[in-house]
């Protein structure tokens, strides 16, 4: 990690820490939404950006997580934040079960299947499946989260909770991208046949990416349920999945800073221009078309390590220096 990056990260953290003192409750709430969407988009980015799987049903995993939290905390009275790992686990299990039979499908077919899956989940929630989800009205009265005996209630308090989780997520997903697992995903996205030929079990890696992304969306669902205290099926419609897809594509698939920029643009910009709110989706649609023609890679695309002549020269110098140093000993 180079010095400039460290400074940039520290500056971002300092700005975030200071934000509640500078902004009013309304803008903090907008930033909370940005944070939640950033988390969801980062979770989708593992599936769509890193593994290259067209998933347009991310809202379903989000819903599974949020409903897990809502049911556990209202029926069994578990503390909200304790249900977070359980929500992640439920979403992950659900993803593993539904994705296993369809994971081999090619791009656009997978997209259609995930749309169908998301709709089936929404319809199941509306129809009060197992008598637990409260039908079209949803579940209300979800208790506030408690951190070290302190009850989180105000937007400013939620702000710290959400953005702390965003920072943690960015850190973990950045490490993930640099890992063996992340490189395997990149490989199978760029060339599945060659990846399979090099001994990467593509089905297992794709499934792992799907499950991981779903788990993260599920945990974000916990935060959402805790913040809203009421959830209903309408919060997890097809359009949520579309907006998440758009955030990842707009920002730059596979690029963490890009995804966060995308979340800021898609969520905060319509708030800044009020008259824009009704035309919001039409503009997004137009942006998607224009982007694909003129800037396919997104606004802040992933920067790949690239071979440069300079690197070769430097490597030769080191190679020449090493024996000399040994001879001098």
């Amino acid at each position, binding site marked *: 990690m180079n010095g400039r990056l460290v400074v940039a990260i520290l500056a971002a953290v300092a700005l975030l820490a200071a934000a509640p003192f500078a902004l009013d409750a309304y803008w903090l709430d907008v930033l909370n939404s940005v944070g939640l969407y950033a988390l969801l988009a980062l979770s989708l980015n593992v599936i769509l950006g890193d593994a290259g799987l067209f998933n347009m049903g991310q809202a379903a995993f989000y819903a599974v997580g949020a409903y897990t939290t809502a049911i556990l905390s209202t029926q069994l009275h578990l503390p909200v934040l304790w249900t977070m790992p359980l929500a992640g686990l439920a979403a992950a299990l659900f993803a593993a079960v539904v994705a296993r039979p369809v994971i081999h499908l*090619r791009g656009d077919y997978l997209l259609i299947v995930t749309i169908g*899956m998301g709709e089936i989940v929404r319809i*199941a929630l509306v129809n009060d499946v197992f008598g637990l989800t409260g039908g079209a009205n949803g579940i209300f009265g979800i208790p506030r989260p408690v951190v070290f005996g302190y009850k989180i209630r105000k937007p400013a308090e939620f702000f710290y909770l959400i953005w702390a989780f965003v920072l943690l997520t960015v850190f973990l997903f950045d490490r993930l991208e640099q890992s063996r697992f992340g490189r395997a995903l990149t490989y199978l996205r760029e060339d599945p046949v060659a990846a399979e030929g090099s001994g990467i079990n593509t089905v297992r890696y794709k499934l792992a990416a799907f499950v991981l992304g779903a788990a993260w969306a599920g945990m974000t669902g916990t935060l959402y349920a805790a913040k809203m205290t009421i959830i209903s099926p309408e919060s997890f419609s097809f359009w949520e999945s579309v907006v998440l897809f758009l955030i990842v594509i707009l920002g730059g698939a596979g690029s963490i800073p890009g995804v966060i920029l995308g979340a800021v643009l898609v969520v905060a910009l319509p708030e800044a221009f009020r008259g824009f709110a*009704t035309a919001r989706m039409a503009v997004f649609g*137009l942006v998607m078309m224009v982007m694909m*023609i003129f800037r396919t890679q997104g606004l802040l695309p992933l920067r790949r390590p690239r071979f440069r002549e300079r690197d070769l020269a430097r490597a030769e110098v080191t190679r020449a220096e090493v024996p000399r140093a040994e001879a001098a000993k």
Partner: protein
Amino acid sequence: MEQFLQQLINGLAVGGIYALIALGYTMVYGVLKLINFAHGDLFTYGGYLGLTLLTSFALQGHLGTFGAIAILTAMVMGLVGIMGVVLERAAYRPLRESPRLSAVVSALGASIFLQNTLMLIYGARFQVYPEGLLPQVAVSLFGLQVPLIRILVVLASVVMMTALYLFVQKTKVGTAVRAAAIDQGAARLMGIDVNKVVSLVFLIGPALGGAAGLLVGLYYGQVNFTMGWIYGMKAFTAAILGGIGNIPGAMVGGLLLGVIEALGAAYISIAWKDAIAFCVLILILIVRPTGLLGERVAEKV
């Protein structure tokens, strides 16, 4: 038994509409290997344009009911067909050589754009077709009382599908379309202008979709700007069910899906009606991705 037959006819009427829309998906997929997500929204434009033309020109007063509907259908098909050609030029042609994801995202963007411009123009509320446009009579068919409109919808869709089938199978231009679907490079070498074929496909598919939109308006008496999404998904399911890229497959798939849905709604649960179609979609993709009539081998890689 009577309920079964009623549901069967109901299913055939809705299925005919699905089949008309599915033809657009399947033709575009056949030639470009692209899922035209905006197709469902072009269908919605058909419903809205039909309403606007009907009310603004007072067609019925001049031409009588059936003359008005014939002229209206022709106008809607023409306009929506032109929209399809423009859409292809603007959103898909620049991406012909790009990776698949780009075209898919562009198609999604086009869908969102078209749907929301419609909302900005007409507003978010349901738009209601004028009442009493068609005589509210029931026809006695095999001892069943079937509303006239239901029979007309089935007839109209069957006539249009047959015309398309004959066009593609029997005419020289239709042969060019089939050739471009099989191998674009070879078709070009045989002197076929593939770009013209693509434009033609984007004229015919959306024209049929627009006609389906008009039929929905006449059948249910109202249109909504978001209806293209759900109809589009169902029609796409129909296209997959019959085997995508296969024109008779889209017809069979559409009718079959309509019947499955109507019977499922009647005998299982009406609340799960939409979920039934999506389950059919997922099952067919898992079990038989080539569809019922598809001889085309699904690409695995």
